[in-house]
């Protein structure tokens, strides 16, 4: 028996069509596979399959205490636990009428900066860069390009240092809670971070220049079928924890109205639900959406570096998402340093509250995009209902549509190259399949003839 998971064999019935199958996608977080059927008439079917076994978080949250939600939902994803903690606690605070102080708010933004860095750099340097430079992994790439991999590791380490200091540890931090933190740092504890982050910010500038120099496949959607980018938007700052949900096609809603505009659909071939915008369909969340909707709220340094590397304020080629991620990494260092310079220790580590029967909503910007949580509580503060919509399930349909429109121009390529191209296109989205539900071993099929 193969160690890789088998996929249902749907190819046998076809005669003239070709099948691209990737049984297990590599360099993504979680377990996923790809199935593409095409023939001379074009691409007939694209399915991104998520076979990550279901873990039923929304079900077992029922009956749990509201204070547990940040710690439990963090376990949805080891790569972006802070995002789950942030969405969970903001939704609980919405339900309980808590408004965190400016000082607490700044500390939350600081820990989120740490996670953006750690998660983005993992993807840029270790998962995605090997696609552009033609290596199976960052470890293999390090033999020829040690400076790129070393720089990535140092940047990631600096991001982890932020999360570890504020959260106790990099993965599943223990210090954030509904209302604030269990313990807030003294200014002296934060000071040693400053030097490390300043050095890292300089490296992040180099990293953005390097990313912009990569060879990008030309890929843009047609003007009839442009992307609809969806992200939080906040009048004064680049979005992380707060804002309205906005889109490039005029959507502008409060987070509490999310369920009226977005629907999750259960499709047969995947364990992740597909999310669509009502009446419109697929949309894109993540770094490109944030960047395109909020460029003018990036810090002057980031806007300046974007100008120097010739990167426009609107990016519609997902293969260039690696540049956007690199600019967001730079932003996160810049923002973290700004927060540290202005740090005032909160008077109380957290705001006290009494549980009550209520519903609460929140969306925050996880590294991979909008992360929506909704909870209902009973009068004892026990959860009666929970809904969580992770970014990857929102991007799933857009990934499929990208492959649909991209593949025809690459059909002349040899199989190996075509598969590589498909995998790279999926990795553009840094799909976190553990969140919604890993990657690729690909087969091409024509008729009933199965190629290796």
């Amino acid at each position, binding site marked *: *028996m193969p160690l890789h998971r088998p996929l249902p064999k749907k190819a046998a019935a076809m005669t003239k069509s070709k099948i691209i199958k990737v049984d297990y996608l590599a360099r993504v977080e979680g377990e996923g596979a790809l199935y593409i059927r095409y023939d001379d008439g074009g691409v007939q079917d694209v399915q991104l399959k998520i076979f990550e076994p279901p873990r039923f*978080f929304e079900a077992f949250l029922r009956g749990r205490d509201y204070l547990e939600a940040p710690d439990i939902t963090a376990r949805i994803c080891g790569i972006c636990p802070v995002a789950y903690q942030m969405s969970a606690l903001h939704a609980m605070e919405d339900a309980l009428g808590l408004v965190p102080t400016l000082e607490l708010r700044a500390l939350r933004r600081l820990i989120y900066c740490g996670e953006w860095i750690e998660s983005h750099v993992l993807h840029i340097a270790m998962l995605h860069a090997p696609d552009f430079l033609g290596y199976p992994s960052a470890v293999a790439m390090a033999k020829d390009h040690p400076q790129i991999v070393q720089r990535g590791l140092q940047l990631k380490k600096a991001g982890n240092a932020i999360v570890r200091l504020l959260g106790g540890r990099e993965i599943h931090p223990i210090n954030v809670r509904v209302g604030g933190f269990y313990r807030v740092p003294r200014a002296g504890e934060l000071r040693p971070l400053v030097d490390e982050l300043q050095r890292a910010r300089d490296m992040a500038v180099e990293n953005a220049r390097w990313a912009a120099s990569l060879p990008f496949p030309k890929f843009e959607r047609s003007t009839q079928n442009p992307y609809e980018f969806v992200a939080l938007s906040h009048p004064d700052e680049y979005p992380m924890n707060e804002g309205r949900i906005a889109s490039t096609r005029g959507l502008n809603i409060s987070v509490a109205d999310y369920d009226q505009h977005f629907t999750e659909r*259960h499709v047969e071939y995947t364990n992740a639900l597909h999310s669509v915008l009502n009446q419109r369909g697929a949309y894109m969340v993540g770094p490109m959406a944030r960047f395109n909707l909020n460029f003018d709220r990036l810090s002057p340094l980031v806007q300046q570096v974007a100008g120097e590397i010739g990167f426009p304020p609107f990016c519609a080629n997902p293969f260039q998402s690696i540049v956007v991620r690199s600019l967001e990494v730079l932003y996160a260092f810049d923002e973290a340093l700004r927060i540290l310079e202005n740090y005032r220790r909160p008077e109380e580590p957290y705001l006290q509250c009494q549980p009550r029967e209520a519903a609460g909503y929140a969306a925050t910007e996880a590294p991979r995009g909008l992360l929506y949580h909704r909870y209902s509580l009973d009068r004892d503060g026990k959860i009666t209902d929970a809904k969580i919509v992770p970014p990857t399930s929102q991007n799933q349909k857009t990934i499929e549509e990208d492959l649909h429109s991209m593949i025809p121009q690459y059909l002349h390529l040899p199989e190996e190259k075509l598969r590589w191209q498909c995998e790279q296109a999926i990795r553009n989205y840094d799909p976190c399949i553990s969140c919604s539900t890993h990657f690729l071993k690909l087969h091409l099929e024509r008729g009933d003839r199965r190629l290796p």
Partner: protein
Amino acid sequence: MGNATPVPKLAVWKFASCDGCQLSLLDCEDELLQLADKIDIAYFMEASSRQLEGPYDLSLVEGSITTAEDEERIREVRAQSHTLITIGACATAGGIQALRNFSDVKDFTSIVYAHPEYIATLKTSTPISAHVPVDFELQGCPINKRQLLEVISAFLHRRPPQVPPHSVCIECKLKGNVCVMVAHGTPCMGPVTHAGCGALCPSYNRGCYACYGPKENPNTASLSHWWKEEMEVQPVTIVENLRNFNAAAPAFAEESRRHDKE
């Protein structure tokens, strides 16, 4: 290479999990490239699209068994592995997803999915040791990356890993922490919880919530008696603390059932 000593082959496997424990390996920023010189990363899907065939000298297994397919796959992984080490609460105790073991999974499926008939899953989430022999279990949700390096290093040097099985209380004493339970009246799972995190929660003025699972021979009955009688903790809170990331670990599961009825 010629007649040089062969480099051992490492494989990293994933079952139902959050990816956090395997990420711990990539979080070893200062050691990762050095490690890659000592051990051939032959199969690690999250990090590499290069996959070497087995057998493997060392397999690290993350995640719990929740599907019939995975029941088969873990047996094959065992057959291909000289040494098999589980990493994390999911692989060692069934993980948070083992909360289904206390309910009816059909109810769970219908809460999350519109078409429960599309979903194939087992009624329980079980640790790897329920299916195949395991050589060493590294506890923690998530594991401690220092301990992970110690376990790999011990394997490379053919010695037993130094992973103390004592409680979080000992780590607090070593750190000089003030006891949050005695001094602040904060319910803390430290006395029954396996060390390894470095007593993080008490160091942040918080009670331990047992993410490292049970220590060796934990006296859970005594601790819950203390919580209830001396600290007026409600049974529901006792159950919540026993039943989270290591809910199916026998010492925690049995004690939680005792309080569930109350």
